[in-house]
């Protein structure tokens, strides 16, 4: 192997490293790390600045329409922003501005405004309460 060949091998290696580095830094989409986690919701519409903190990640990244949301992800909307989510299981949520929610064993609204249609069995938590849809089985006969 001549010195020229060695130099081109180093160049190829540098390019591969650079591509790998860029791929790890990309924002917005479903990061490869999410593939191992269970998807819990899909973004079906949004407006304004909406970010997601992927489970285990350190940096918030911009969330895009059509992106998936996974267990342990957190979503935040800024002033004037909103997001519409279709949850696996049939629930649909509209997330208002300046809101933060997280996923994991249901949906936790940490602050802000969320409204929507909750499917039976979905658990909703806030710092002050826990809620769950009450099915006909919960009706007490006295």
């Amino acid at each position, binding site marked *: 192997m001549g010195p020229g060949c060695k130099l081109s091998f180093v160049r190829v290696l540098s390019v591969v490293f650079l591509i790998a580095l860029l791929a790890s830094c990309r924002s917005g989409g479903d990061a490869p790390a999410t593939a191992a986690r269970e998807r819990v919701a899909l973004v079906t519409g949004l407006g304004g600045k909406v970010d997601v903190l992927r489970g285990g990640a350190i940096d918030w990244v911009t969330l895009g329409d059509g992106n998936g949301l996974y267990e342990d992800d957190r979503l935040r909307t800024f002033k004037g922003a909103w997001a519409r989510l279709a949850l696996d299981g049939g*629930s649909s949520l509209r997330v208002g501005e300046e809101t933060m929610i997280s996923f994991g064993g249901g949906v936790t609204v940490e602050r802000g*405004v969320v409204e929507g*249609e*909750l499917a*039976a069995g979905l658990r909703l938590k806030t710092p002050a*309460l826990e809620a769950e*849809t*009450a099915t006909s089985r919960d009706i007490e006969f006295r």
Partner: protein
Amino acid sequence: MKRAILLLLLASTAWADPPDGGASVSVVVEPNGDTTVDVHKGALKVKAGGVEERVVAGQTVRAQKGKGIKRLLGAPAPLAPAADATFNNTDVALAWKRVPGATRYVVEIASAPEMVGMRTETVDGTRAVVHLDPGTWYWRVVALDGGGAAGKRVAARRLTIDTTPPKLKTGKPEWR
């Protein structure tokens, strides 16, 4: 402000049917964690401070961190004047439906639908006469329970005071 925006949003929302056995709800969590849950359709089991309650369509509950659940009084339905009414005098009679459990009512009036800088008037009955300057106004009524806790708020109704005198029709005199 956020609450006002939500109220406007709610007023314009036709609640979709929830999936079978589900519920349509809206949840507001304030920065200190205090939470208000409004059930529009279906029913929810709500747990807070070791207490569990069933909340059905049309009911609203509020929970503070570490405390129990408190049911909020309903919003008084406005009776008069009709939405978007126009008056040519500055004294307007407002009327609303009685809310079971309410001991007093607070009339809220502002010049913008967000109700920023609103003026309030507390009354015992379900009627109040208010003096308003010419312009566009938004009003709503909040029920108070025996402990003074405010009930649900809804989107404000608009009314206009226009005291511009009507134009006189003048014609040419005719000799007979």
